[in-house]
């Protein structure tokens, strides 16, 4: 994949041969190729444009180094910019409190319940944490059962009230229960909802206001396309979430949604989820994600070799 992008960039750079410096004119085709690569990776159309314009401004006037191919040079610059953009303000998960409350929210089927289980499992393995899962999805058929099965697999308690049709009071009761059960981290799994669903967005905002979570994690499917921007913005407007979780990265998606979201709401990506099993949770590496979006192998070694 890296080869193909850098080859494309090299051929776009052909016109540059013999010219000493990068100018607006001689870089146009290259910028277009990069933009295209980003859009193919599902980076939002407008963001791809803004991003490549920025990269272009950064390289204007630079000397064309002949030692390595201009395509590779350009790819490296893009990758570095992208890495920087995806990283920055790296913040640890805040699980301090008694109990600390972590609210999980996102679209339908994005992987919230599975992630809730994984996070509970992750925290359980850390010293000083005693997590409890809270089943606050009162809509999806068998949502409680699903969370209970996961809780059973990892040996973590699941708090649920099958007869209660009010997510807010379930969450509030769970907080009280945590104290009696001596649990110091609550992970609240909520129902999937669309950003345009006013009633459902109000519900999750009400849960937030009622229990005051330390962390609100927005869970997003890494295969999401152009709409990632709208959704992230809408959820952030309502919840002011503290972090993002990217799921299903065990697939072969390039995952440009990650860039779109970071660019739009500027919240840290705190975890990546890459599998259906409870131990497939990872912290986020900006550089790997940048490479993935650009569809490259390990570009650094390639460039260093050149």
């Amino acid at each position, binding site marked *: 994949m890296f080869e193909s992008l850098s080859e494309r960039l090299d051929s776009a750079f052909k016109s540059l041969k013999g010219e000493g410096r990068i100018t607006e004119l001689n870089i146009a085709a290259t910028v277009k190729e990069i933009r295209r690569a980003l859009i193919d990776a599902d980076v939002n159309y*407008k963001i791809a444009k803004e991003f490549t314009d920025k990269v272009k401004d950064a390289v204007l006037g630079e000397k064309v180094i002949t030692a390595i191919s201009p395509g590779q040079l350009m790819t490296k610059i893009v990758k570095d910019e992208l890495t920087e953009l995806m990283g920055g303000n790296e913040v640890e998960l805040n699980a301090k409190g008694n109990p600390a409350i972590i609210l999980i929210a996102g679209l*339908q089927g994005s992987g919230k319940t599975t992630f809730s289980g994984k996070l509970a499992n992750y925290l359980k393995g850390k010293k000083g944490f005693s997590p409890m899962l809270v089943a606050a999805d009162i809509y999806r*058929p*068998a949502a409680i*059962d699903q969370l209970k*099965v996961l809780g059973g697999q990892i040996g973590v308690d699941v708090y649920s009230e099958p007869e209660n049709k009010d997510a807010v009071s379930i969450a509030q009761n769970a907080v009280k229960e945590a104290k009696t059960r001596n649990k110091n981290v609550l992970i609240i799994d909520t129902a999937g909802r669309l950003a345009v669903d006013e009633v459902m967005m109000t519900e999750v905002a009400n849960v937030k206001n009622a229990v005051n979570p330390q962390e609100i994690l927005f869970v997003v499917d890494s*295969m999401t396309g152009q709409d990632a921007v709208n959704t992230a913005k809408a959820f952030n407007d309502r919840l002011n979430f503290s972090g993002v979780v990217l799921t299903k990265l065990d697939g072969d*998606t390039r995952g440009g949604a990650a860039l779109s979201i970071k660019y739009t709401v500027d919240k840290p990506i705190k975890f990546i989820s890459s599998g*259906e099993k409870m131990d497939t949770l990872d912290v986020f590496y900006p550089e790997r994600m940048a490479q993935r979006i650009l569809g490259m192998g390990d570009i650094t070694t390639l460039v260093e070799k050149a």
Partner: protein
Amino acid sequence: QQTKENFLSKITKAIAGKSTVDEEVLDNLEEALVGADVGIDTTVQIIERIETRVAKDKYLNTTELNNILQQEIEAMLVDAPSANSYAFDSELPSKPYVIMVVGVNGVGKTTTIGKLAHNFKKAGKNVLLGAADTFRAAAVDQLTIWSERAGVPIVKQDMGSDPAAVAFDTVQSGVSRGSDVILIDTAGRLHNKAHLMDELSKIRRVMQKVIPDAPHEVLLVLDGSTGQNALEQAKHFTAATDVTALAITKLDGTAKGGVVLAIANQFKIPVKFIGVGEKMEDLLVFNKHEFVDSLFNLEK
């Protein structure tokens, strides 16, 4: 509506009297189509078609351009072969008619099955569900609730049992009960996992021991908010199971599902159903015209 007209009139102004489409038009069309997840390749293809038409037809006004756009895009959305087309209340091409539902994780397979069951049942058909997702936590419980909602029977085994065996049982049971429609739920799986794709081929083969030409329909469910990766999904699921139709879910949100344009065009698979909510009633039979219209519906 406002935005749509602006967009179209911009294009019209830019193309009027010219035989080629200029940069501005390209940008506008690109923005609308790419922003709807249509993808660059397909977008370029659409633009080229428009260019050809414009050069030939010398159209004049917005309405005509609108029509050309609609026509060209609709032409990319193939129809089901007659052997494979049906309505809920019409006689099905075979009895029982076996529909196997496949797709990546969390796209809406189980929910779509619940909705299909409801629709077939309402149209007077005998429906049977097969819970061949024995893997995902509480998958069988979830499908059981849908079977109760729709009021149709279900064949199931314990979690962790062989999904092919469940599918086999279901088809056999459907034959002896005289079911009209059999809906087989399968576990979500990412298309790049070869062993899981093989499992799907196996489920398919095992059903053929009971009914040689089953499944009659392999419905690939795509999440409407998925981007270009849906093309890979279509490619690999088709390779493993000969997908015959697509369902696009979650179109009640702001996502447009434009990637199905590329899929339909490239793999010649028709879109049959659209999911527009989480309730039993929230399933629509796909309508090309309305779908294309919604691609250009930029407000919200």
